[in-house]
């Protein structure tokens, strides 16, 4: 029990708390590990702190996770790269815990440290660690081992390399599906470090085993490996070995595997190159677009545009568009919704003529879809089509769709369409907007749901930003002023909200002439909630308007409010007065 000098006291406490019973304190202490290390000095950090941490493997996950993260950047505190190996033992223990996120972080930190270590140190310390983990009794260690090979491998001698190959291939045949999954998902990284000669023999045979695994969950990870390996192999090997696998996967019995192929398809195409894409992957993709399982079609539909970008427009029109047409009337609403979210982006890819001829009917049918999400998704991407074919062709169908969404009985749908109104306004132009949508925007201010009213108020502000205050003077302010007399105080509150938002974009002149009088009237409202909101808004106006206006109008009003019988009104009024 030594006496600690006063300036060191916080450090001393921090060190003690490494083992405190309270997890929050331990966490805090672990997060300051670097401070502790600097206080102890490099040598004692190596000899005392690190061994202490190595024992600490049954702590709470959160503590372990933080520790794994801190140790990843700890090299400077143990005396630089030549001592980096002392960090390996505690991370090795963390690689074996059962919580996945801790293990993943430990592996990440090990990779970070390993990539800085000297080659000889890697051979002396890192590779034995990988071998120990790979031979671990519990599957957790073996799972972690898979993620370390790509760091260990490059510095290994030829003999060691052969050994590492065979260890990895054992891991790919492990009894535990968890280990095989880890091996499958790390194969790409490992393969990238392996010499081309071994790649074609050892790695490919490992890969083939994985693609035939009887666990769906393993096979579907091998799909990702296709893309990674495809990039590494020579084109002819790729076509010979990877392409058939992809085609097989795209017809796998398990929908989850096919789903994965649909998700990864663009990456796979990039890896395979244009010719195999045209001959083999287009048919595969077409099959996926027509898959029996809706989940697969959803994934495939979501990639339509990306895939068409890879192809040339003729191929896309010839092979993909017919499927797209079918999908636009798919039985699953989620498929149509996925399609709607990307199909507008196809317009620039296909060009004006094809868009008008082929896509427009699809747009129009999706705009009439029964399912609001589909219509919303189309509307949200309007800006993609506008430059290609202009909005006029769509506007006939657009308007009923918008109006219907605006009145949908689900408030979340109404909310979603409000969010898109400024976008629509910019695409449709002032004229069209005023004619058709202006009234809607005002109608939302009196919606039954607060979130909608709030969004409507915000919408007015965004529209004003879009069209300018001149426009707002004509099309917004009069209506707002009119509604301020609504008998429902909740609606009057919405107007106040709109006023405060508009004030920030209208400029001081209009604010003083139009909005301020409204507020002064509202300050005499019979409902206290209105009054203290007026006080709040007046406070926010102070920086916007002229000093003279503040003194002449705002202050007297606030003073009056500060003498209100209601305590909340007085509070906010006083707060505002102080802000002047």
């Amino acid at each position, binding site marked *: *029990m*030594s*006496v*600690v*000098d*006063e300036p*060191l*006291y*916080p450090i*001393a*406490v*921090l*060190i*003690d*708390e*490494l*083992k*405190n019973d*309270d997890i*929050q*304190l331990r966490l*805090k202490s672990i997060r300051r590990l*670097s*401070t502790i290390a*600097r*206080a*102890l*000095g*490099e*040598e*004692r*950090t190596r000899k*005392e*702190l690190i061994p*202490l941490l190595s*024992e600490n493997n*049954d702590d709470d996950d959160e503590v372990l996770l933080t520790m794994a993260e801190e140790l990843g950047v700890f090299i400077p505190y143990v005396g630089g790269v030549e001592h980096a190996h002392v960090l390996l033992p505690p991370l090795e223990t963390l690689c074996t*815990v*059962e919580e*996945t996120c801790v293990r993943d972080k430990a592996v990440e930190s090990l990779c970070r440290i390993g990539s800085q270590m000297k080659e000889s140190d890697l051979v002396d310390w890192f590779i034995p660690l990988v071998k120990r983990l790979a031979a671990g009794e*519990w*599957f*957790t260690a073996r799972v972690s081992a898979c993620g370390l090979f790509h760091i260990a491998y490059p510095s290994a001698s030829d003999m060691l390399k052969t050994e590492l190959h065979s260890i990895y291939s054992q891991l790919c045949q492990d009894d*535990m*599906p*968890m280990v095989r*999954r880890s091996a499958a998902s790390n194969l790409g990284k490992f393969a990238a470090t392996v010499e081309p000669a071994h790649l074609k023999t050892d790695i490919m045979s490992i890969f083939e085993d994985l693609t035939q695994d*009887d*666990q*769906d*969950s393993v096979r579907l990870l091998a799909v990702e490996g296709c893309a990674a390996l495809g990039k590494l192999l020579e084109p002819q090997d790729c076509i010979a070995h990877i392409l058939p696998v992809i085609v097989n996967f795209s017809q*796998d*019995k*398990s*929908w*989850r595997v096919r789903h994965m192929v649909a998700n990864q398809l663009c990456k796979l195409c990039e890896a395979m190159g244009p010719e195999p894409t045209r001959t083999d992957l287009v048919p595969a993709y077409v099959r996926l677009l027509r898959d*029996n*399982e*809706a*989940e697969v079609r959803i994934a495939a539909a979501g990639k339509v545009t990306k895939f068409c970008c890879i192809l040339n427009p003729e191929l896309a029109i010839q092979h993909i568009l017919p499927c797209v047409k079918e999908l636009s009337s798919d039985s699953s609403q989620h498929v149509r919704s996925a399609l709607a979210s990307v199909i507008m982006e196809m317009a620039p890819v296909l060009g004006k003529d094809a868009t008008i001829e082929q896509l427009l009917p699809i747009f129009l049918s999706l705009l009439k879809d029964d399912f609001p999400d589909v219509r919303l998704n189309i509307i949200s991407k309007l800006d993609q089509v506008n430059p290609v074919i202009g909005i006029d062709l769509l506007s006939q169908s657009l308007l009923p769709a918008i109006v219907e969404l605006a009145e949908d009985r689900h408030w979340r749908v109404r909310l979603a369409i409000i969010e898109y109104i400024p976008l629509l306004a910019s695409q449709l132009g002032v004229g069209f907007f005023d004619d058709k949508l202006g009234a809607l925007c005002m109608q939302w201010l009196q919606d039954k749901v607060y979130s909608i009213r709030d969004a409507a108020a915000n919408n007015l502000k965004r529209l004003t930003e879009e069209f300018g205050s001149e426009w707002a003077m004509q099309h917004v302010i009069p209506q707002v002023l009119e509604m301020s007399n609504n008998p429902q105080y909740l609606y009057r509150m919405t107007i106040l909200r709109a006023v405060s938002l508009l004030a920030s974009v209208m400029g001081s002149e209009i604010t003083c002439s139009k909005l301020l009088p409204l507020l002064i009237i509202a300050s005499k409202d019979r409902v206290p909630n209105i009054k203290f909101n007026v006080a709040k808004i007046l406070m926010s106006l102070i920086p916007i308007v002229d000093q003279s206006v503040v003194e002449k109008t705002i202050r007297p009003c606030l003073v009056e409010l500060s003498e209100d019988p209601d305590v909340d009104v007085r509070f906010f009024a006083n707060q505002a007065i102080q802000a002047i």
Partner: protein
Amino acid sequence: MNGAGSAEAAALASVGVPLQPLEWKFSQVFGERTAGEEVQEVDIISAIEFDRTGNYLATGDRGGRVVLFERTDTREHDGQRRDLERMDISINRHPEFRYKTEFQSHEPEFDYLRSLEIEEKINKVRWCQSANGALFLLSTNDKTIKFWKVQEKKVKKVCDMNVDPENATGNGPILGSSMPTSSNCKQYTANGGSLDGPFGFPSNDFSFSPGGVPNLHLPMLTCHETSIVARCRRTYPHAHDYHINSISNNSDGETFISADDLRINLWNLEICNQSFNIVDVKPANMEDLTEVITSAEFHPTHCNMLAYSSSKGSIRLIDMRQSALCDSHSKLFEEKEVPGSKSFFTEIIASISDIKFAKDGRHILSRDYMNLKLWDINMDSGPVASFQVHEYLRPKLCDLYENDSIFDKFECCLSGDGLRTATGSYSNLFRVFGCSEGSTEASTLEATKNPMRRQVQTLLSGSSRSLGTLSRGFRRGADNTGVNTNGNAFDFTAKLLHLAWHPSDNLLACAASNSLYMYYA
């Protein structure tokens, strides 16, 4: 090993040498009732399961507790093969278990939204993959599934602190004038938050000499003893509108299912706020409801296959590869109704209370109120074997309906080699049947220290059974006596609902009320 076992059995059957019936002997009892002792409701065992290795046994009870037992007799031989070989004969010792630990898995809750009480009763326990010497298991009550980790932990004591509270007082006000008393000092130590407070924290620009500060030292840990700690690692709540009747792990090691009356959900063990509904039998109009899910289980090796049973007596096999929503089954197993025999009770007693896959993954055992049936998943025309468990109760169905016994859900189990099956009955009886072809084994045992007490009677009735080898299925084990040997009526309150067969040995664990009886053969 298992495959070889069944091949051997098949070979035996083909040369017409049926397996010898097992002679069951009492092994152990936990929580035995003394005469006249009243059983507490909360102590009644409601779930039972051996882990994959057979080294552990878990039970759940109505009080929401999970009790773990650990095998004691194999420990000393672990890994020493030569010793094992030398002691080949003495290996015949039967497995013995000892109490390991227990923990409170579920507490009674109240669902305020629906004004429903949620019982703490454990409906199922399932073992998961163990790791790092810790045991993992899933337990569920009607609504919530929990994932438990049970581990021996070293009790560590921290010593050699930098700041010792008592020492600090002895050395005067080292904290400066603002915190002169020992009580403040303790507070300071215990509350690291004050580090960010008035003292200011040594931020990263705080400079230390390159060699560090020599008089700071790290806390030391001393280990005194170990204790077994159970921690709830995850809770999977709010996914079931109806009562959960089964949970089952997938062979992929990362997913499991939970089934309630109308739905089956698929979970990832690591994600507790999201599950996928894979089966939904809820009709659009609840008045059209004719059938509920009674039990569900994953295939032991094929990660994509699962089976569930229904209240109408059918078993459906599902291939999860086909579709994300598996409302349509791949295979349906049900027995055709015998025309003309329909009565008010027909549907009630047809309801399957439990299904189990055999280890080979080819057979499914099902239990309904009257029978135990063995199905081959390659044959959907009918069961390959059917064993009458409660035929003698047929005349009494009316009484059983009135006292609700007819709704009792008896579980069933298969031996590790798939050659025998067992299931429970009333009066704390359980029955064991040989299910390899040609086997005539059908024993009735009582969950007491003397299990063979009723053996005589069974053998008598056994001789009268007809071996219907003409049809592909065969029926036997008909027990026509309605009373036991003493002439007493069956005791419908002493029902043996839950039992489990050791995965490799002939060892049965039976739950009779609050007692756990183990028998070996």
